[in-house]
């Protein structure tokens, strides 16, 4: 199994840490993983994205032109990455702030309104976990147990009390994700 993912959005949306949790989860189930972020000062207030690859085999290129899955969290990223999903691949997006919705017919498109949901739950910090949940619903590349282990690894100990909230968010994401025709 090899899953090649791009996650893209605003700097503050937790894009990088979502990728990191995914990568950690992969490690927890003995997979090879790679995580490559956009970096540098242009991230300041701008966009952020990260390429995550999970695989049973040694990973070749950590950067890619096309992806199995694109998780898209703002309009700029939609403009940039809709075309980068492999035919037959998956595109997940949060509808908040999206003006031009994805239109490709050769891929599966899902929507997870995580921003709205997070606002509803009064905790914007779990936004990215809701998205992650949605993704895992569609592609259970890692087991929830391993995600929780990964989360634990990637969070400093002093934040471990947040783990239950995060787990809930993931579950909620799995519930609210919907496939767009």
């Amino acid at each position, binding site marked *: 199994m090899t899953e090649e993912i791009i996650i893209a959005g605003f700097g503050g949306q937790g894009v990088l840490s979502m990728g*990191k949790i995914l*990568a*950690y989860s992969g*490690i927890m189930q003995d997979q*090879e*993983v*790679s*995580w*490559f*972020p956009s*970096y*540098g*000062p242009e991230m300041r207030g701008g966009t952020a994205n990260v390429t995550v690859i999970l695989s049973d085999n040694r*990973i*070749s*290129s*950590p*950067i*890619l*032109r*096309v992806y199995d899955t694109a998780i898209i969290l703002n309009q700029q990223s939609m403009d940039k990455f809709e075309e980068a999903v492999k035919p037959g691949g998956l595109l997940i997006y949060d509808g908040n702030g999206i003006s031009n919705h994805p239109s490709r017919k050769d891929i599966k498109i899902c929507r997870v309104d995580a921003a709205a949901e997070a606002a509803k739950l009064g905790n914007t910090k779990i936004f990215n976990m809701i998205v992650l949940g949605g993704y895992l619903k569609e592609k259970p590349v890692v087991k929830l147990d391993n995600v929780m282990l990964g989360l634990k*690894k*990637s969070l400093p100990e002093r934040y471990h009390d947040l783990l239950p909230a995060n787990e809930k968010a993931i579950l909620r994401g799995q519930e609210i994700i919907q496939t767009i025709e």
Partner: protein
Amino acid sequence: MKEIRLMKGNEAVAEGAIRAGADAYFGYPITPQSEVMEYLMLEKPHERTGMVVLQAESEVASINMLYGAAGTGKRVMTSSSSPGISLMQEGISYMAGAELPCILVNVVRGGPGLGTIQPSQADYFQTTKGGGHGDYRLIALAPASVQEMFDFAGLGFELAFKYRTPVMIQTDGLIGQMMEKVELSEQQARITEFDQSWATTGKTPDRAQNVITSLDLDSSRQEQHNIHLQKKYQEVADNEVRYETFDSDDAEYLFVAYGSSARICQKAIELGRAKGIKVGLFRPITLWPYPMKELKAAAAKVKGILAVEQSAGQMIEDVKLATECNIKAEHFGRMGGMIPTPEEVLLALENKIIGGK
């Protein structure tokens, strides 16, 4: 039990240095490698192993702090990125001339000048041919994974001390910034009882003074020193070549690429083989000494070579020298922080080598 972590390349080389028993790190922040010092500061290696970490006032100061500490026999490291490495050239030449072991890490970014902070491999010439003045060489290790970033810290110290010479870990923003799974080796003790036959640790009655210098105003002695250096470099060239091949057994074409480009080429091979193109990879791990003989042998079995490097074409010169211009060899690369995609690389092979005359 193996200790496994998800780490950035920059963090891995820092942790690698701690575990290899490094005594000191001196450095100055610059993107995309500031995590090296940040990681070290966070890890408090002074408490873990007694390792010293100091933020210097500049790269010029860093390299000269390295010189001082290395001159006392200590295992020392610095890291920077292209403009900062350029500032170190005088000091690097001094360290090579004074035969001081150390690890330098260059997390290359796009140039020239201030350029960009995105990954690049355009400092190949600087590292392999001599960015500083005079006849000297750096042993240059080019990791292609985060694991190797970790491993090469240890290997780097080993080589640096074996030959008393600076070792460059030549990498780029891609390897430095990406995270991968790393298997950590065990902490090695810092070496406090070491060979002080040459190190300046204070003259004791039982030995003559030790002096660390690169100066000899007497030209004939200076020439002898240079001959000694050249002999040493020959020994390194004879013994320390490292490289790796992928899918090269049945290959009709060869990518030659190091570091992040080698990773991209591996994906291009997957794509190429899926299309029926028999292409393999020759990956120099030591950029100097360059695997001359080994590449020549590998080249003898194929029809053409595409050297892939994120530059305008630097390593291609060594490819040509290695193959004695006996085989079609072209350069493909992107510049200014652009990273080529596997698709582009494959296309370049098809156009420049397979399709080319």
